[in-house]
């Protein structure tokens, strides 16, 4: 599974994503139900530096390729 697919599945699928934004370090998911996050699945991905719930968002920092991953996710969420 690609990183984009794995991330989307681990946050509870596209139906659970209310919105997705990014900054310079993080993907920022706003989720309908934050409880649906499969933290273990996300932490298991080598590309992920850290993934945490904060400021009402589920934030994921990647080792690299943030912009590409964001664009990939945006396409799947369209």
């Amino acid at each position, binding site marked *: 599974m690609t990183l984009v697919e794995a991330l989307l599945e681990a946050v509870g699928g596209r139906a659970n994503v209310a919105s997705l934004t990014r900054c310079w*370090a993080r993907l920022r998911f706003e989720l309908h139900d934050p409880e649906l996050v499969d933290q273990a699945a996300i932490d298991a991905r080598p590309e992920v530096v850290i993934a945490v719930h904060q400021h009402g968002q589920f934030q994921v920092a990647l080792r690299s390729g943030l912009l590409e991953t964001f664009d990939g996710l945006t396409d799947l969420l369209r």
Partner: protein
Amino acid sequence: MTTATVEVPLRGLDRGQALGQDRLGCRGSRGREGMGVKVLKVFNNNVVLGVDDHGAELVLLGRGLGFQMAPGAEIDLERVERRFVPSGATTPERIAAFVDEIPLADIELTERVVDLARQRLGGHVTENVLIPMADHLSFALRRAAEGAGEIEYPLQWEVHSLYPAEVAVAREALDLVAAERGVRLPDVEAVPLALHLVNAQFGAADLSTTVQMTELLREVIDIIESEYQVEIDEGSVDVARFVTHLRYLFVRQRAGKKLRETPEELHAALRSARPNEYTSAGRIGTLLADRFGWAVTTDEILYLALHVSRLVDAAVAGGGS
């Protein structure tokens, strides 16, 4: 240099006492004599959105400030420990979510970074930078504490070569963090801090304009290199001047301001002396217009043409090709 004095006694804080109170650049005073602030919205027991007598909105932080308070109630300013002014993308909701979760010590550390940056770079580094930068810095400290790996930031190389002054200040900020916290963040963390400082010139909280500008600077330099078959030294004074010019061009365009009109003779003179560079400048103008929907005036083109000429001359003189 700070925008306001601290009048608020920092009592009741359980974090950050270790920092000298005289250094705490708390933003905003408790308000002038007789100035009242009323509750607009209670976020939680400690965080309230208020509105002052002038109708300005403020996010106020203080222990128990929101407890049993309803909209319209007068806020007890004695209990306010911190106040934040919402602006642009930094909405009251974002500030509220933020100040509730981020350790106060991290906010205070960021205030010192902002003060430092203002001393080094100038007054355009305002309070607008505080929340987004504290958000970033706090997260970086958290990552370091949890032993998370380094991040390879987008546009890393561009930020270093295009914004050396901001990168230098960002590195100083990393030293400050190390001195205050005993945590040496990786050098690569200077990149996002520098971007926040560059972004300060736009007075907007979100980085998208700065990112677009950075990508554009890169492209424009590539265009010149390929059109003239030269290699441009990114560290040169001419590039620094050109980058500064483009940064102000971005600020002008976003503010809808125009350069003063230059006499037609100047346009004619440059067009005839440097026709290729004048054409290149026109292409850059078209790129800006297409990408951002701007109306780029002929006066802007003239200045761009001058900069292109300087860059090409410097590259040729430097034996770049």
